[in-house]
């Protein structure tokens, strides 16, 4: 199921805050690169964590290779806008003239949703086989580590809004192109990351519904991150509970830890069942990572989990 995703050109990854969007985006990127895809994972909204995870210098708006075949970049809306102006006016001098003019700066600072639009425009540009920017090579796959669901949805919507408002002219044309690209299921997919807990499951289901109703896009996949292992079955638990209370403190702590783990795993399983029952999208799970720091090794392990479960 997951491997099918690697044949797209653009994966838009969103989900509730704190569920691990960046981790899963990076793991998907590692998996794609292992399959020989030249892959870009781009972060947005001034965030940059992927280069840090791979221990390479920050990329900013440059396309930086973090491991063989895997690239990272952080989309700055300002830089994306400057680049877009230059492409539209086909002149850096004219673009600079307009970009530095006070009236234009006021206009762009004020225009609602423009930051989202130019960010989507850059993401689209990265995913084109014919790259528009100078000295750039095409990617087989672009993965967007998008903002959390509400803002993520606003970002997905921005091209349509601008296409509708502008009606004619370069912005309308460009926004229309981006819109067609992100709504084409052959080229683009929207993926929600969740956790097997009540709130993230609710938010995922709500996002799926709004994505369908408001944008006409079907959620393509759900990845449930951080699933606790089911270490103990009910027979184990009965045995643990039956242990005589007069045990040493460390043994008692070990038994309590086992029961607590069992409890958490069971509650996660019930949320996972609910999610599977109510979503129309396929669901893949990723195990909880107990390592304190997430580095390239852990990402590789998650990538192989994604592959194994597909």
């Amino acid at each position: 199921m997951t491997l099918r995703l690697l044949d797209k050109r653009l994966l838009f990854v969103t989900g509730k805050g704190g569920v691990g969007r960046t981790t899963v985006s990076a793991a998907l990127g590692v998996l794609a690169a292992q399959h020989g895809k030249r892959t870009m994972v781009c972060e947005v909204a001034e965030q940059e964590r992927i280069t840090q995870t791979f221990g390479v210098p920050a990329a900013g708006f440059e396309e930086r290779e973090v491991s063989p075949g895997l690239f990272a970049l952080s989309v700055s809306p300002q830089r994306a806008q400057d680049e877009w102006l230059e492409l539209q006016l086909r002149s850096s001098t004219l673009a600079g003239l307009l970009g530095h003019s006070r009236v234009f700066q006021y206009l762009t600072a004020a225009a609602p949703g423009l930051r989202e639009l130019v960010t989507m425009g850059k993401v689209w540009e990265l995913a084109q086989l014919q790259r528009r920017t100078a000295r750039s090579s095409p990617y087989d796959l672009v993965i967007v580590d998008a903002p959390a669901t509400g803002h993520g949805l606003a970002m997905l919507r921005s091209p349509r809004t601008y296409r509708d408002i502008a009606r004619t002219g370069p912005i309308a044309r460009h926004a229309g192109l981006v819109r067609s690209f992100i709504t084409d299921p052959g080229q683009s997919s929207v993926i929600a990351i969740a956790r097997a807990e009540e709130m993230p499951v609710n938010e995922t289901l709500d996002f799926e519904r709004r994505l369908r109703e408001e944008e006409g896009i079907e959620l393509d996949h759900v990845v449930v991150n951080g699933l606790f292992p089911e270490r103990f079955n009910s027979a184990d638990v009965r045995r643990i509970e039956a242990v005589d209370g007069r045990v040493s403190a460390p043994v008692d702590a070990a038994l309590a830890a086992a029961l607590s783990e069992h409890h958490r795993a069971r509650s996660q399983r019930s949320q996972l069942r609910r999610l599977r029952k109510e979503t129309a999208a396929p669901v893949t799970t990723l195990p909880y990572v107990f390592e304190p720091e997430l580095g390239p090794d852990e990402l590789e392990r998650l990538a192989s989990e994604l592959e194994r479960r597909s």
Partner: protein
Amino acid sequence: MSLAPVDKLLARKEICVCAGSGGVGKTTASAAIALGMAARGSKVAVLTIDPARRLADALGLPEIGNEERLVDRARFDAAGIEMKGELWAMMLDAKRTFDEVVHWHAPDARTRDAVLSNRIYQELSSAVAGSQEYMAMEKLHELHNEGRYDLLVLDTPPSRNALDFIDAPERLSRFIDSRSLQLFTAPGRGALKLFGRGTGVVFSLMRKVTGIDLLRDLSEFFTSFGSMTSGFRDRADRVTAMLGDSRTAFLLVTSPRADAIEEAVFFHDRLLDAGLPFAGAIVNRMNESRPEAPADLTDRLEELLGSRLGPRVAHNLEDLRRLAERDRGNVERLAERLGRSPILTVPQLDEDVHDLLGLAHVNRHLFEI
């Protein structure tokens, strides 16, 4: 790292803003703080953005609504909570609040309708990051002004960037600031004239990249919004003043994960830079600390539980102990960076918190320390 119960941190405060990045349990913390303060005798209102359905049900909140509701005393009795004050709750609807603000500032019905029906306004009021934050502040200001509560607790919206709401009033007022609007609406330089037949290089370039329709729509929007700018500016200034007042307290909510702690530290520094009254941090969902296993633990567990189950129980203890260690280390890092500011920790509870009993349970760690 110092400790102080929440009721001490909030003594003589009228506003408590719970801030933090997404997914750290801000809504739960806000509701728990409001419940705890109300139970101790205050009249408290909690403004929340998007509570879990079951938490909303527990508080008796309908799905939509932009008004405070008194949580029925019978609910506390049923949960065995002694309620000395009053707990009010409201679910904030940012779009409706924005509409209300337009109603308030519009000089006449025509302007009001022109703004409300403008597509750019609709996009701004419902979708743009920042407007939700600003509207939360607006509502807070309105309720504070009315003075009906001893304490208002605000659960800030889930934004990518926890700092968004600090800048929100400023950004929004900059947006509608008269100086930028004058460019579009200056008398004698009708917007259409400006955009349609403007002769400057900049305008011709602008027309070239935006298309004439978009410029026209924007100018219409700015024209109708222009008449409301002074009201907005004034209001934004008062909201900023309210946030910086000594009667306000900012509580930072975070999870013990490394990235969340990083953000919390950054956020703390920003609050101080902005001169906002930081009161303390709450670290939510800490993994419970576990003792280190003695060398013979696996043997003893094998004796008790057999050779298949025993080692698994030992291994599990080690995993959970490491998680707890990681959390403890992260909180220590936070404490170093926060200096003498109080930090409260709430353990990971076995169940998701979604009822009054669950909130009362959280409060054992916030109030009874």
